[in-house]
């Protein structure tokens, strides 16, 4: 899935930034978040954070470029989907 081992770890940094910004923007002074609520925001922020980290990883980019060449709706292609996605080639 990733070309670099560091990609999921870089995602943690992005998640920390996204989570901190979201909490800063959303939190109401009269209703501070609990530790668990903050942790939930940071955990959810890992999802877009992973996407941002993947932008700097060549493997997802290469796969996307390969998949864009394939017409999954052409006759017979849908049944070949599994081998296509695993191989990344038509």
């Amino acid at each position: 899935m990733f070309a670099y081992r560091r990609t999921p770890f870089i995602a943690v940094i992005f998640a920390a930034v996204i989570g901190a910004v979201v909490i800063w923007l959303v939190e109401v002074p009269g209703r501070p978040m609990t530790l668990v609520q903050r942790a939930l925001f940071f955990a959810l922020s890992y999802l877009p954070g992973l996407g941002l980290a993947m932008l700097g990883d060549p493997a997802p980019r290469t796969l996307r470029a390969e998949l864009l060449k394939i017409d999954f709706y052409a006759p017979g292609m849908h049944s070949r989907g599994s081998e296509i996605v695993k191989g990344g080639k038509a």
Partner: protein
Amino acid sequence: MQVGHVAVAGTIASFAPQISRAVGGPPIDAWSAEALTVVFLAHYLPNLDVIPIKLGWATDRFHCTYSHTLLFAAVVCLLLWPINVSWAALALVSLLIHFVADSGSSVGLPLLLPFSRRKFSLYLWADTGHSGWFSFEGTYRQAWTWITEGGMFVVLAIRGYQLGAWPFN
């Protein structure tokens, strides 16, 4: 967009009071059973086009065609309008946002069918078919699906905090 539709629909349902008030219809509470039912049904309605494909009544190319058009959204809205204005508005918003959510896919949405065959796409991620594990796997091996869908789950959590819903109560 695949799993992210759940977060998108949940977010729309959180705005049910504002949407129903905007059209002057019967009030609907945020995340009430009524709001969730109408929004989830309407939001997932376009993707039910896989049913005729699976039954062999249509080819694979039928996916993301007529069910992903402005005309389809208008027809659903007009059918619901005499029954419940708020449902019609919620369904319209749900359908239109479904199209926005799918606009990143390379499959392209023929929004103007049957008047124009032009397809609209932001080409953020490559489409990998309408169903199956490979479609799921192929989608989630691409960056922008995580950014958009993951981002929507963060937005859903924000709405949870704003509305004081569990676990933010």
